[in-house]
């Protein structure tokens, strides 16, 4: 097989893995948008905040240490213990549930029945507030996140492909685990929403608030639940991105990459978020590989947006979104 073709396959595979991470962030958007009609601009920052909190808890960092030290003139930074990864993840998940409750109780409960644009503005405010809180709580330095996932080239794939084609594929172990985790997460989410009482209630709320109330569903509970799940999804996304490129504030910018993913997949579809993420991931890697050299590279910065724009023209509801037909 020609070298170039094998190379393209490798790029595609790597694109799929990157797409999984986009899909994870987009998934958080879809969950909240479906259940409450809120486009949550803060989803990316939630991923960042979750990752920061996870690192902070694992390293035994004292939250708000800068603030405390500045006020009391003390010099405390660490509790001096290390929390095992699994326990830290559980604790962080609890923090995200608490965050969900606070957001619902103190922001969105007061904004029920407001225009979507107002809800959107609220989430922008929330995003920057949360970013500030994250900075204040855990500091702004780049942190290394290691939850014990295998990293580096997968030797087995490298060897097998080398023996078969004479060219070894470079696939990162971390990407493989990210994919597996994402598959498990999505499967669990689908099982939850299709088969459980809370999942049914969630779908009911997504469909019609009044009807949901009349069959005994508490909207508040469902909204806290859905923000908690979105928080958990953000945590998973944060772990994966953090493990890959360190926990840093640019992480919140992934949120912007989720936008074209959503335009492609549709804002209300879980499968759409996944397929959209994969298309964007593969698309931008392949485009960079095939066309990039001709036009001077750095196409990954804008390719996704252009693709989304083209999609908007032909299929504004996205691949899996519900077609909006107004009856007149």
């Amino acid at each position, binding site marked *: 097989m020609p070298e170039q073709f094998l190379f393209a396959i490798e790029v595609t595979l790597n694109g799929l893995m990157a797409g999984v991470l986009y899909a994870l962030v987009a998934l958080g958007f879809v969950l909240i948008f479906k259940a409450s009609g809120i486009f949550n601009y803060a989803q990316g920052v939630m991923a960042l905040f979750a990752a920061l909190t996870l690192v902070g808890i694992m390293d035994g960092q004292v939250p708000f240490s800068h603030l405390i030290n500045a006020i009391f003139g003390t010099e405390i930074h660490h509790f001096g213990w290390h929390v095992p990864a699994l326990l830290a993840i559980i604790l962080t998940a609890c923090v995200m549930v608490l965050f969900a409750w606070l957001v619902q109780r103190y922001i969105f409960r007061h904004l029920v029945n407001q225009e979507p644009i107002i809800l959107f503005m609220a989430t922008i405010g929330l995003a920057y507030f949360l970013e500030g809180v994250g900075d204040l709580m855990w500091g702004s330095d780049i942190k290394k996140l290691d939850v014990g996932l295998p990293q580096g080239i997968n030797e087995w794939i490298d060897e097998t492909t080398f023996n078969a084609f004479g060219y070894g594929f470079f696939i990162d172990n971390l990407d493989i685990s990210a994919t597996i985790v994402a598959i498990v997460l999505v499967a669990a989410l689908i099982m939850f929403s299709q088969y459980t009482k809370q999942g*049914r209630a969630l779908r009911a709320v997504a469909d019609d608030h*009044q009807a949901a109330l*009349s*069959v005994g569903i508490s909207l508040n509970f469902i909204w806290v639940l859905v923000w908690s799940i979105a928080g958990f999804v953000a945590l998973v996304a944060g772990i994966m991105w953090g493990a890959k490129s360190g926990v840093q504030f640019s992480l919140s910018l992934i949120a912007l990459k989720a936008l074209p993913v959503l335009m492609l997949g549709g804002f209300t579809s879980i499968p759409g978020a996944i397929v959209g993420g994969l298309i964007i991931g593969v698309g931008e890697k392949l485009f960079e590989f095939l066309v990039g050299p001709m036009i001077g590279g750095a196409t990954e910065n804008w390719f996704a947006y252009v693709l989304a724009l083209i999609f908007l023209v032909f299929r504004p509801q996205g691949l899996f979104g519900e077609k909006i037909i107004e009856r007149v």
Partner: protein
Amino acid sequence: MNDISGGNYTTADGRKIGSTLMEMKNITLRFGGVIAIKDISFDIHEGEIRAIIGPNGAGKSSMLNVVSGFYNPQEGEVWFRGSKRPPMKPYQVAQQGIARTFQNIALFEGMSVLDNVMTGRLTHMKAGLLSQMIWKGKAEKEETENRELVEKIIDFLEIQAIRKTPVGRLPYGLKKRVELARALAAEPKLLLLDEPMAGMNVEEKEDMSRFILDVNDEFGTTIALIEHDMGVVMDLSDRVVVMDYGKKIGDGTPDEVRNNQEVIDAYLGVAHD
């Protein structure tokens, strides 16, 4: 059976009417300066079909919304099953066993008829989360029981043919019936119907009337309904409350109400123009 206002009697067609299930005491509801309901009291007996009628804007729907917890009245008390009900959210009222339908239909348009009716069972599901996800143990048993009941209701309301159809595609009359099915699935102690026959043609109205009577007869469900079509109500209900401009102007059997001068005035428009 001369005095039926105290309950505990048998109707002419042999249905047993019990004692008071729900009592509204001196309810007043205001929206800012507008008084929607003014000092209204009435009761609902177990097993009866109770109607609230009145011209447009009389406050009927507001009254129903008070009963179902969508509005909380500024004054007055709501008594349900022998105890005073504190101010409640609509979902809490639903969990207490009061199901309702809406004037403008509130269904889950994206779900199938079957799924819609199944949501009526939500308050009866008790199995744990994990058990539900892996479909074993308590959840499996519960789901089977719920499905049986729901299928029975679907048969009863003659909507088997559209079980799997997404509700959004159904015509108006059928949607109304699906909404009734969902409310029935909750096995309510009290069923509230907000203009169940609004916007229907004669044939559909006849079907709906038959279903309401059958539900009451077969399941013994207590029903409170709102209508402004006098004819339908008089045939259906055991007792009727008449409202006009937020006040109660009549209460009694259909015959009593029909001969009430104030009611005649309200309906013939003496007071209005």
